């Protein structure tokens, strides 16, 4: 019976993000090759998430505290470790964290019961994670935060407004315009 496809999707499966990232990590193979390999071993022999006890938690507000995360995530079991995601440069929260439980079952239950519900009035996202490693607590975006906060076009108050790159570009444009006006003025003056 275990081999049967369930009649209803399970919410405690890793997201497409994890699977795609793993695919991308194999360089030098084109898609065709990859599919062939996949066909050969249908079930990857060593699933890194088989006993995962860690979850990546996304879409947090920058203002959400560790204590709030504890309060909600403890409903699925005692938390072993909590690592807040930080801006690489400012070392301030940048809207994600890793929650580590003592058991795999607690992590799965968290996927099922907490992922997609609200914390601090935002719908949060959970994803099974093979485990925290030093360095992963920092945002990988150009300006230090998460990549998704670079080019975001919607204004998200809980995550620093518009995307940082957009804000930067706007600032740059403003400065340029100002410079131009000033330059123009000074050029004008010089000509005189």
């Amino acid at each position: 019976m275990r081999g049967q496809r369930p009649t209803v999707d399970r919410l405690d499966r890793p997201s497409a993000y994890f699977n795609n990232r793993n695919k991308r990590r194999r360089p030098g193979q084109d898609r065709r090759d990859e599919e062939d390999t996949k066909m050969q071993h249908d079930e990857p022999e060593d699933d890194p998430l088989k006993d995962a006890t860690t979850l990546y938690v996304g879409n947090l507000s920058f203002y959400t505290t560790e204590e709030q995360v504890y309060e909600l995530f403890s409903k699925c079991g005692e938390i072993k470790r909590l690592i807040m995601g930080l801006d690489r440069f400012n070392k301030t929260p940048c809207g994600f964290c890793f929650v580590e439980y003592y058991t795999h079952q607690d992590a799965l239950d968290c996927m099922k019961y907490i992922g997609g519900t609200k914390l601090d009035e935002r719908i949060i996202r959970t994803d099974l994670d093979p485990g925290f490693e030093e360095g992963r607590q920092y945002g990988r975006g150009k300006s230090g935060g998460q990549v998704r906060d670079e080019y975001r076009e919607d204004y998200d108050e809980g995550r620093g407004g518009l995307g940082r790159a957009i804000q930067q570009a706007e600032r740059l444009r403003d400065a340029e315009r100002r410079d131009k006006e000033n330059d123009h003025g000074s050029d004008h003056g010089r000509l005189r």
Partner: protein
Amino acid sequence: MADYDRRPGGDRRGYNNSKKRRYQDRPDDDDYDRRGPRRRFDAPPPHVRIRKQLLSIAENPMRPWHEEVASIANLFTDSWEDDHMLRGNFVDLILQLAVEQPLKTPFLAAVVLVANTNRPEVVDMLLTKLVANTEARIGQGEWRDVKLYLKLLACLQSCLEGDGVFPVLEELFLRAVDLQTASSEDTIGTELVKIILLTLPYVMAAAPGQWQQKAADLMEKTEIIALEPHALQILIEPYHPESSEESSTPSSSVIKLLQTQLQSEANNGWALPCLPRPWEFPPGEAEQVSKLASAAKHALPLIAIPQTVVAGPRPLFPEVYFSVYGNQEVESVPSINTAAACLIRDALLDTINIMDYNRNITARHLIEVDCFFAPRTFAARATPFDRLRDIEPPKSTWKPEDVAVDAVFSQLFQLPNPEHKLVYYHAVLTEACKLAPAAIAPSLGRAIRYLYRNVHHLDVELDSRFLDWFSHHLSNFGFTWKWTEWVDDVFLPDLHPRKAFIRGAIDKEIRLSFAQRIKNTLPEAYQDLVEPEMEKEMPDFKFLDDKTPFAAEGREIAALLRKKAADEEMQPVIERIHALALDNNLDPLVTSTDVFVTAVLHIGSKSLSHVLAAIERTKDRLTDAGAASDAARAQITTAVMTYWGGHPGVAISIVEKLLNYSILAPSAVINWALVSHAGETKGQALARAHIYELVFHTVIKVTTRIRQVAQKPALTPEDEAAHEAEVRSMRELFRAMEDALVAWATGAKDEMLEDGTADAERETFIRRWGERWLRVFRRRAAIEEAFLLEAGKEREKRAAAAAEGNGNGAEVDVELEDIA
């Protein structure tokens, strides 16, 4: 991705599967067609269509059942010759759906019955597998699956030879009798009788008019077991009436209700109006009707039930029927006198508990409950409660939302524990409320009011669950609640259970959010309940104030801790505190512990990570401080609970970590709560939700640890000794709690006696809190003892089997391990 997501139309994507859209660099991203030239439409092959249609059977309320059933059955039998794989797949899917989505069972049975008119072979294939699966589940003690297979079988009664499913039920009954005669605390026998009683109505609906005598005979037999009050029922009673209201009737056990409800159904010719009968065709379809009547009958292969049956992976307890919509002026849920109450509840509970892996689908089934029962069983969806009064008598006033919500609440409030973590039931209610806010939110509101009105005699464990759910639920819906309607209760004394609830709820809301946000949601009268220290993100460091004794030393220690000074540098300051304390007639160890722990908390006040790092660095000194004297150990807890007094959630997390480091022992925490702190506050502490939470968590930590060890397949002699020591200390813990709580409950507590102010109201409140706490922890103690007894038996059995196995060679040993 499985079938639910493939269906066109509607946004049914799970949040996790939603296609992530990267930054939109194209303004018309949504309109941009990436699919290339449109594919020519081919109808998918029959096996795909049959699977899809079976999965969504009965979900569309606009489609008449008989049409849907006949079309699936005919598609299947028409493809019989073309696709040989299909036959097995069809049978497997029916059996899988029966245990995964049991609301659909009668409809699946109807498809099988129609298929039987053209291809009778399919029924034999199905029965063979059904019997094998049922036997396997009986062997594993998976009683719910057994029940669900029997339900499918019952719905097929009309195509079975001889007595059909009755011999199986009779055989089950014989086992139940054996078990019940062997022990009055037996729960498997009760479970078997419940299965029999829940199967019977489906037989009677599937083959009306034929089996009344058989049913009567069976029910005459089950009566004695079903009506006998169960020895354990007193433990799991959700309400704990005050001694003055002894008259209030205890809740009814589900099995007793079932027996009496079915008895009145029998007297009424088994009308069972709520059950769906999708196998009945309208008179216009005379041909189909006669084909069904003359279809082939099949012999049901024997279902072997072993002489000894096992309890299975989940501990069995008797169940009480819990409802939050009792005693209303209009019946918005079936009354406990009708079989519909138990039958609908049972089908919903199976759905809820089986599908915990997809709360979105669970919520959808709950909202669409009216699709799966007979037409006119319910009032129209989302009918406001006030409008039920206008419904003319023969029509139903049962609100589908109330029935669905009631089922979830019965799990949330099930003692000792529901099948899944409580947060699952929170999530189902949240999801249902998101899917159909206009229908569900008012039902939840009425449930909240009912529970709030009854909070004073709710079991304290359930009171705490209510608090936890309520605050969590509000956090998902913008923290909006009509607080104004409880405004009078704000002025009640803090000892009043309703006031205690309000305070607890506000604290929990703040934990999930922050004080100012919650304050903004509260009416004027509640504002003072958010105390100033609750609004401070970081508590004040009391040693900053020179008026605090040992202020200079406190600051010095904090400074040393901050620069991560060596322990040797710390010692002189600690010794200075000891000397000063002795001069002032204070306990030196208690004083230095308070200063040190408070300083550690202060340098870790920025976040839990900070405080954990600070504890990690100072754990040796903390351990020594705790080991120095009982009073010093108590002071650690006091310091934590005092420093974080405005944020009890943080305090509780820190205590939990201190327990993990063995800096605190569970008994120290319990003693602090029930003796020292409760004493200092003259019993007021018993009315504080966070004190209960602290104690409860501590007890659960102890019992969880013991259970883990007890469940190990085998214990080495050293393990065994350690385990026994742990069990002893658990028993001591429970005994200490019993002593402390009995003193509060009987008013024998010194702090209550010496008070002298003779405040009778206050004393009544405190004694009542003592009684209610006592009940919770007596139950916990009893449950753990029962568990240890079973686990011990299990280990002995395994040890005996292993010993035997060693004599016969190692292979047997391995096999037995696998089975276990």
